[in-house]
């Protein structure tokens, strides 16, 4: 198992390196465009352009430029924006990351709880009234766009009802966990629910299907022949095996979300997370910022998928041998 983890991490690092090279090439080696004017912005003066050229080594060979870029990004961490002059990129990202991580963490807890229990309840009551009811809520949660749901939630909690039953809902914004855990949770409560609803719907539906398939497997018949209770068969055998596909789904979803896909929720609720930051960068054509966010996002996807593979190997012993 330890060897598996080491191997998986080594390959993750290799993938990260490849991604960084690719991203670098896309941003700085696309033919026909002068990278200096791209970085410096449309209205930059020749002096600024020269400074950019020097800083990124634009007149030097490609590998050195790559090295310089990585040096600024990761070692010296002094990559600066030329759109909002003087803004350092890395501190912006490290300030935004806890917000995104907090948002995703809470949403993950909610969607796993709701999604798994929904899937189990539906599968358990297959053919009864409860099953299609749960599945209806699932498809509804999947179908409602996040930005619409977010706006609706804001409208309800911040509108007319804000003076009565929703008086406890803060007016958006973010309070860090270390500062005040209660306010942290309170500020993120509705963003959590909004972000979780889509995934809870997907997970409930996927898990229901998996459970029903697994309940028809031969090993379930063996479990019954062993004289186990239906409860134990459902939870210890069928659910345990169904979780394997849930985990692979989970890894991709969390990776993509941490990498910035929580953008819509962040923008709707005014949370200045990584998604929001990327959005700002794109609007201002702030190239260093975009590059930092893309790099950060890609790395999180890779890390999350590596972590999931390790969990995967833990819950499915058949994987360990292959690796």
């Amino acid at each position, binding site marked *: 198992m330890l060897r598996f983890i080491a191997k998986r991490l080594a390959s993750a690092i290799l993938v990260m390196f490849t991604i960084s090279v690719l991203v670098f090439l896309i941003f700085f080696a696309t033919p026909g465009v002068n990278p200096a004017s791209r970085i410096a912005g449309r209205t930059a003066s020749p002096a600024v352009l020269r400074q950019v050229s020097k800083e990124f080594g634009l007149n030097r060979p490609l590998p050195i430029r790559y090295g310089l870029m990585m040096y600024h990004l990761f070692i010296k961490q002094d990559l600066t924006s030329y759109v909002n002059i003087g803004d350092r990129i890395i501190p912006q990202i490290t300030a935004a990351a806890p917000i995104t991580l907090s948002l995703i963490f809470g949403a993950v807890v909610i969607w796993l709880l709701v999604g798994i229990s929904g899937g189990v309840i539906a599968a358990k009551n297959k053919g009864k009234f409860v099953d299609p009811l749960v599945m209806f809520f699932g498809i509804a949660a999947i179908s409602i766009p996040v930005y619409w749901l977010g706006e609706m939630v804001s409208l309800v909690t911040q509108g007319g009802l804000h003076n009565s039953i929703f008086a406890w809902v803060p007016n958006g914004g973010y309070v860090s966990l270390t500062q005040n855990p209660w306010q942290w949770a309170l500020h993120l409560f509705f963003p959590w629910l909004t972000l979780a609803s889509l995934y809870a719907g997907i997970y409930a539906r996927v898990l229901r299907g998996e459970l029903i398939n697994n309940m028809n497997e031969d090993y379930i018949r063996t479990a019954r022949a062993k*004289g186990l209770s239906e409860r134990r068969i459902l939870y210890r055998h069928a659910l345990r095996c169904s979780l394997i596909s849930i985990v692979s789904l989970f890894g991709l979803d969390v990776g993509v979300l941490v990498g910035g896909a929580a953008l819509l929720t962040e923008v709707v609720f005014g949370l200045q997370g990584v998604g929001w930051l990327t959005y700002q960068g794109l609007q201002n054509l702030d190239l260093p910022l975009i590059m930092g966010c893309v790099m950060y996002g890609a790395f999180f996807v890779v890390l999350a998928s590596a972590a999931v593979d390790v969990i995967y190997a833990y819950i*499915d012993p058949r994987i360990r041998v292959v690796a």
Partner: protein
Amino acid sequence: MSPEETPTDAVLSVRDLSVSFATRQGVVRAVDGLSFDVGTKEVLGIVGESGSGKSVAMYSMLGLVRDANVSISGSVRFEGREILGLSDTEMQSVRGGEVGMIFQDPMTALTPVYTVGWQIVEQLRAHNDMTKKAAYVRATELLAEVGIPDPKSRVNHYPHEFSGGMRQRVVIAMALSCNPKLLIADEPTTALDVTTQAQILDLMGRLQAIHGSSIVIITHDMGVIAEIAHRVVVMYAGRPAEIGPELDVVRSARHPYTWGLLGAVPRADVKTRRLVTIPGNAVSPLEVPTGCAFAPRCQYRMDICAERPPLRGARDHLDACWLSDEQRLEIRSTVTVRGES
């Protein structure tokens, strides 16, 4: 054995068991009027083609048929106690505790994500009050008993780390873990290669002698029957075609369907260009004839076969066929059936 009396030493006695499924195309009678007894330490073979209802019969009496459209009737007495219609919770102590089961495909019969030891321990602890540690010790003993090399380390291995034959040994160890009075083996050798088949049958025979369990073995292979069974039930289309001691049924089969089955066993000592088959296909369970179910495929069909033949015969060798003893003698003098040549 006549259907009315129940031998006192019978571990299992089944009377007039019928299982039918309501489907969109109509009612399917998967098992129709099956009666038999299994004595103490007896090995009963149930033989028939695929779809003849042999597995369904066994599963239904243990409550393993989980179909909302099933209806089961008749009587199944296990050690004198009626078990048909027991609640699921009551049935749980019978299943795995007093009746062990072995299944056809050992590759899929074990939960893939747990070690084999864990799975044996789970069953031990479901039926006995024992500590985890003691249960693991017992599981290791059981693995040793079914001939798994190095049981101390193998107990912590996962099912995918075993070969098919070894997995079937694990399944057998699990089935025997609670010292069941009855072992039901559903085609235990079908999914295995020939040499492994012989080993597994041999193992079952040895363990049966040690543990003293009775065995019901379901198979479509007359060779398996000849190897291990004391008595045989031949089933066709959900109905018993012939019941009798193994030697009688194999040596002097009375039902034309049994003749066909015996003829279908390939022999090493007779050169044949093609494998012998029974002409025609197994009857669709939706359109079982009102008379003898085998009549459409039977080359000795008579007018009376439009009526359903009763199960009758001398002493303990019964069959459901309208042929008279004279007719059978005449037929058998012209054809050779395996086992008597």
